[in-house]
């Protein structure tokens, strides 16, 4: 299963030819494992021998049942969680801490209630110790892109869940990241807003030309936005397989009834069923 966008070599072949040359892949995960020490009994194995390559500009979804380690994998790539084995290389550099040109957004929008919408977006510059004056214009432009320019001086509690999540996305993109990591960013919004956000984010990522990794437990969402879907199984978390979604981006609402979408979604479901992610 060789994909032009994502490749998951068999666990043992990290040195075998056939892998993408490291210079071509933006994120390269090799044999990554993560164990959490348990207070009693055996350690919990969150990830075991996970390998994959993500090409520049790709949108990759990672989908799998709860506890399959997909969030742990994202945090490891983000440099926020140290793997217990294997290595992760982002843009040619071994990950030892947060990669400077990385943007991240979590399930809860994590907006600061005491900052206005624009100030929340500019938090990215503040946290990095950069002068915010150089970012105000970009902050406003990002807000305009997600249709929130009129809300720049509003406070988060005045916004709906979907609007808040779009602000969080602007914050993640403020410093022009080359890698965007989304950890279930649409988990807390209602179903209709979620479908709209899927379209919005698909467009934004395409425009920003940012490589994106989305972790989700929603198969339709995973397929809708992605070039390729990495399916994981749990206990221990491993890559069960990769399903390609062969259709141009950005995606629009109509893509949900496109044969390519349905084919890929079915393939993901079958893969989950075959690997025990679904009970028959």
């Amino acid at each position, binding site marked *: 299963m060789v994909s032009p966008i994502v490749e998951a070599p068999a666990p043992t072949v990290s040195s075998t030819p056939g892998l993408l040359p490291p210079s071509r892949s933006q994120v390269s995960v090799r044999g990554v494992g993560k164990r959490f020490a348990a207070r009693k009994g055996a350690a919990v194995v969150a990830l075991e021998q996970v390998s994959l390559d993500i090409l520049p500009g790709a949108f990759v979804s990672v989908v799998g049942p709860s506890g399959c380690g997909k969030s742990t994998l994202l945090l490891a790539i*983000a*440099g*926020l969680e140290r793997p217990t084995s294997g290595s992760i290389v982002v843009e040619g550099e071994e990950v030892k*801490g*947060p990669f*400077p040109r*990385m943007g*991240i957004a*979590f*399930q*809860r929008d*994590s907006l*600061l*209630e*005491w900052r206005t919408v624009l100030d929340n977006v500019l*938090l*990215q510059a*503040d*946290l*990095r*110790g950069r002068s915010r004056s150089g970012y105000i214009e970009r902050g406003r432009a990002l807000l305009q892109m997600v249709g929130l320019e009129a809300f720049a001086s509003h*406070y*988060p*509690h005045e916004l709906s869940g979907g609007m808040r999540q779009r602000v969080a996305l602007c914050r993640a993109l403020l410093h022009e990241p080359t890698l965007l990591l989304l950890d279930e960013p649409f988990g807390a919004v209602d179903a209709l807003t979620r479908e709209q956000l899927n379209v919005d984010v698909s467009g934004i990522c395409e425009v920003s030309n940012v490589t994106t990794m989305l972790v989700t437990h929603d198969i339709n969402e995973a397929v809708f936005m992605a070039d390729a879907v990495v399916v994981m199984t749990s206990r221990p978390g491993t890559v069960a397989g990769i399903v390609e979604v062969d259709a141009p981006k950005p995606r629009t609402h109509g893509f949900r009834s496109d044969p390519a979408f349905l084919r890929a979604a079915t393939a993901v479901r079958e893969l989950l069923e075959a690997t025990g992610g679904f009970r028959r």
Partner: protein
Amino acid sequence: MADVLSRSTETPSGPDEPVETPTRLRHVIQRGWVGQVGLVLVSVVAIVAIWELVVVVFSIPKFTLPAPVSVASTLFHSTGSISSDIAVTVEETIVGFAAAIVVGIPLAVAIASSRLVERLVYPMLVTSNAVPKIALAPVFIAWFGLGSVPRVVMAAMLALFPIVISTVVGLVGVDPALILLGRAADAGSSRIFRLIRLPAALPSILGGLKVGVTLALTGAVVGEFVGGNTGLGYVIEQAQGNLRMSLAFAAIVLLAVIGVVLFYLIDLLEHLFLHNRRKAS
């Protein structure tokens, strides 16, 4: 327009129709500022009236329970002569409260950011809080003499605990995702503290200050009971010794006023700092 006018004259027409004026009146009474103050006045007047009635009906002697009228008269005539005592008590309370903030908040920051400090200091703090601090008043007098120092120490001691606890709770309770966000942006712990932790903990800290400022007043008065010859606590003790109950009650009313004013000063700070935030959900 005509339609609206004609309808408003027709209502209320039946039992199911919302009766507008009484509802709005109730709304103003419950929500409006004037309504709130009005309600407080009603309850105060009611209590004073019952008090007066009880004293008259049961002909309670003046040295047991003075009637509100005589307390009011004493308040009017003696407030001048005890003004220095009022000032002393207010000053002790404020200085003690300030000392509790200066010691308590950095201590709380240290406890919240270091496991070691937490394990070293927390049990001691809990133990010292478990000791009835009034029992320490004579010890403080032996250590610091009869001046204002033991009272200030007492005020600070009482205010310290709620300030430390609520600051620690606020700092530790910050959403872990916010901290992760800071770490992802490669912010150091001091920058995360300044931009995220401290502002996130502010509501909790101010809550602790509200409890603390009232306890500081209690501490100052307890200190005055035990030693020295100034302050409203001393005035109450003397008045009780001389069977001048109306003076004792006048001082108690003054203490209540001081306590309420200090409380609402912190409340005002809270409104200034937190007016933009979501109401407690």
